[in-house]
């Protein structure tokens, strides 16, 4: 490798290195320092030691946000992903002219940004006139007066329902790609050996889609813990009634950019980063444990 080529390689990398140096590495280091300062706005700061962390970890509102976010992540993994996998299995046939068409339709909500979804669903969830209550009333005769976004016990169900609409089709695309790895020969062999649909699913399909499934589980967990825009628009820039829809990032946003306390914001950011890191590691561990029991 001659000198000229090495120089060109670094030149190709230079825009990335320059921008990420100023807007990634430097802020990353600064976030660590900032978490130990109390700030008011961007220009005034005082060193306060661990007091930002002590404040956050002693604040019931933070635990409210942590609880809401955890519930949301739980339903993303145990309700949304099984639905995505189910749809992928239904769509995954060897020859089906309509496969591409339905894949497109089911994927389409992902094109709509979370803010726009929040705006749209805030009206769909209206009591009496909203489409969702009218639909519930139409099929069951009840539910016309449900006040989804004003009743603290219904805010999380509303958020979860909305996220189902947004993400079920998106995750289905990944499962469909994973199902390409399922060997047709193995499926036929299992069928000949008398394996039922459930046995074929557990012994042939699950092992083949495991890498994709792990990827999707980790990505949904990371995404769920960073939930912000959807509840922000759905609940009109608040945490909702009784803060029933407050998320960790919303809590961070309120402290850092509405109250101007960037130090507390950085401390919450670090706590969030550590939570996400710990959960991802645990998920990788668990999946390895399942591999070799």
């Amino acid at each position, binding site marked *: *490798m001659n000198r000229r080529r*090495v120089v*060109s*390689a*670094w030149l*190709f*990398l230079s*825009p*990335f*290195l320059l*921008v990420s140096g100023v*807007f*990634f590495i*430097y*802020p*990353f280091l*600064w*976030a660590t320092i900032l978490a130990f300062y109390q700030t008011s706005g*961007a220009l005034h700061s005082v060193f306060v030691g661990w007091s930002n962390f002590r404040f956050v970890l002693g604040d019931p509102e933070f635990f409210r946000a942590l609880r809401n976010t955890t519930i949301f992540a739980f339903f993303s993994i145990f309700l949304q992903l099984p639905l995505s996998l189910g*749809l992928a299995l*239904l769509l995954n046939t060897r020859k089906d002219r309509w496969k*591409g068409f*339905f894949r*497109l339709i*089911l994927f*389409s909500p992902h*094109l*709509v*940004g*979370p*803010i*726009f979804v929040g*705006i*749209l*669903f805030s*009206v*769909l969830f209206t009591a009496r006139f909203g*489409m969702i209550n009218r639909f519930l009333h*139409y*099929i069951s005769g*009840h539910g016309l007066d449900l006040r989804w976004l004003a009743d603290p016990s219904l805010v999380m169900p509303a958020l979860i329902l909305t996220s189902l609409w947004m993400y079920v089709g998106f995750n289905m*695309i990944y499962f469909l*790609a994973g199902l390409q790895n399922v060997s047709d020969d193995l499926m036929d062999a299992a069928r000949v050996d008398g394996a039922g649909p459930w046995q074929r699913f557990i012994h042939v399909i699950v092992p083949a889609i495991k890498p994709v499934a792990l990827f999707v589980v980790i990505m949904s967990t990371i995404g769920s813990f*960073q939930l*912000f825009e959807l509840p*922000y*628009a759905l609940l009109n*820039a608040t945490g909702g009634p009784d803060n029933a829809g407050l998320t960790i*990032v919303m809590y961070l946003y309120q402290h*850092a*950019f509405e109250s101007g306390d*960037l*130090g507390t*914001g*950085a401390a919450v*950011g*670090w706590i*969030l*980063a550590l939570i*996400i890191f710990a959960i991802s590691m645990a998920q990788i561990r668990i999946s390895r444990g399942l591999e070799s029991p």
Partner: protein
Amino acid sequence: MSFNVFHALLIAVAAVYGALWFLRSDHGTSANTFLRYAVILAASVLVLAPFAWLVAATFKDPDVLNEYVFFPPLSEWSSDTLNFKNLRVLFEPRQTSAGTFTFWLFIFNSLFLACAQTGLQLFTSSMAGFALAKYSFRGSGLVLGFILGSMMIPPILLLAPVYMIIVNLGWIDSFLALIVPSAVSGYGIFLFRQAMLGVPKELLEAARVEGASEFRLYFSVALPLVRPMSGAFCLVAFLASWNNFIAPNVFLHSTHKLTLPVILQQYMGDYSSQYGVFLAGTLIAILPPVILFFLLQREFISGLTSGAVKG
């Protein structure tokens, strides 16, 4: 509870399934296919219903918005029930600190920012991906490791310090605050590196022998070969930028500089009594990504599947 079309439909589906199952001349294959399509169709209807509702809400007269769930029945179609009132109010000139503007301005701001960010990311990511895939030099492993590691950091952690940097640079309320920090993408570099690994070395050597510069190798040889990837990446980058809310909401202040997600979120409060107006705005805001998706659909799907095949 009254018996209606929905219940009749459920009973009909159950009856057809039962009949097909009972006959089962083909071990239940046709019954299963029928049920499969019934579930997929039901899911598709649930997915499409909010879109249909949004279109109806945009064109219904504000006074009859709540009278019909979707569109009024054909016999009641007239300019009293269906018209452009919501769109007319949405596009009324608005007074801002920098003069009088219409809704077109916010569309233009969003388009400009999304195109600038997508174009820059495409350029910087494909160059860096080319360097990491086709040159072996000391430090390349370190750069790649840094890129993969950086994707583990939640972006919100950096928002507070980046905000302070933007304030110190004097870029608050300037498009620079949105364009420069997001001119690069670690995810994009990783995608382009994976795609460029497939560019044959012989092709590059042949071009070198003919005296092409290293930049020409990247621009005229490697880049055209990863066109499907570029299409998929453009769509992803455009979507991310077009739908971005936090950064413009934090960095921009003047009304005439806002983007669609930010202004529409404000309109929810400004037009809380005429929600047809911000719904019309939302319909307009989701059109460009949909159009782009259908234009790039083939490349998008081939980009996705080629990634899946390579694993």
